[in-house]
């Protein structure tokens, strides 16, 4: 199982802050995004291609990162701190 987290407008628009799901070997974050887009109707319009950041186990990464059991993946809107 992996944990997927959503923040800020992603959390509000998707109506969830985290979910857990099982993934197959070799699944990348890009694969996970495709899977979530097929399962959650509004996902594709909320987490739009190239308009989000992703973090794996609390470090920014890219969509090619391969996931393992126990990982925490976060889909982050472009950040606006400071």
């Amino acid at each position, binding site marked *: 199982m992996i944990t997927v987290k959503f923040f800020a407008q992603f959390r509000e628009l998707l109506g969830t802050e985290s979910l857990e799901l099982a993934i197959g070997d070799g699944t990348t974050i890009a694969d996970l995004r495709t899977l979530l887009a097929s399962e959650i109707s509004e996902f594709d319009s909320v987490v739009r291609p190239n308009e989000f*950041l992703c973090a794996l186990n609390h470090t920014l990464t890219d969509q090619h990162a391969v996931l393992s059991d126990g990982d925490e993946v976060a889909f982050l809107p472009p*950040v*606006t*701190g400071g």
Partner: protein
Amino acid sequence: MRYLAMVMKSRFYHRLLAVNVDRISVQTEDFDVAECYSVLREAEGDGAIVTFTGIVRELAQEARLAGIELEHYPQMTHLALEKLVADARSRFTLGAVTIIHRVGKLAAHEQIVFVGVTSRHRQAAFDACQFLMDILKRDVPLWKKEWHEDGSGQWVAAKDSDKKAAAKW
């Protein structure tokens, strides 16, 4: 022993010590700029301090704001700031570094963020302070929501100008 004494007096040794004077905090409570500044003044051997303080504006696109709310990713924010400071230290010769970022609800004119650095001379201090703010605005998981006086809220969109500022490093 003589060698050890020489090492301890050397600038290199003080730089090693300086690694331990990073001050990084993500907090709801306000901070005291004078206190932050006085800590930076203690940096051994440095002749320049540059600081930046960000505050909440009272207007956004001509609309008057009641305030803002800052959300973050608690398990990641501090780690991202630590990486940011390490990156700054690898680029610039710095003494002390302080970054304080507030989260939660803030009213107009409240302080949001403090970045302060010391260096031997001004150029590295100016550049490092700019670098820290530019990359913070691209890589640290914090999001602003503006609350209007009519009770409506709106997430702030990331600005192209901020992306360009970060890209120049």
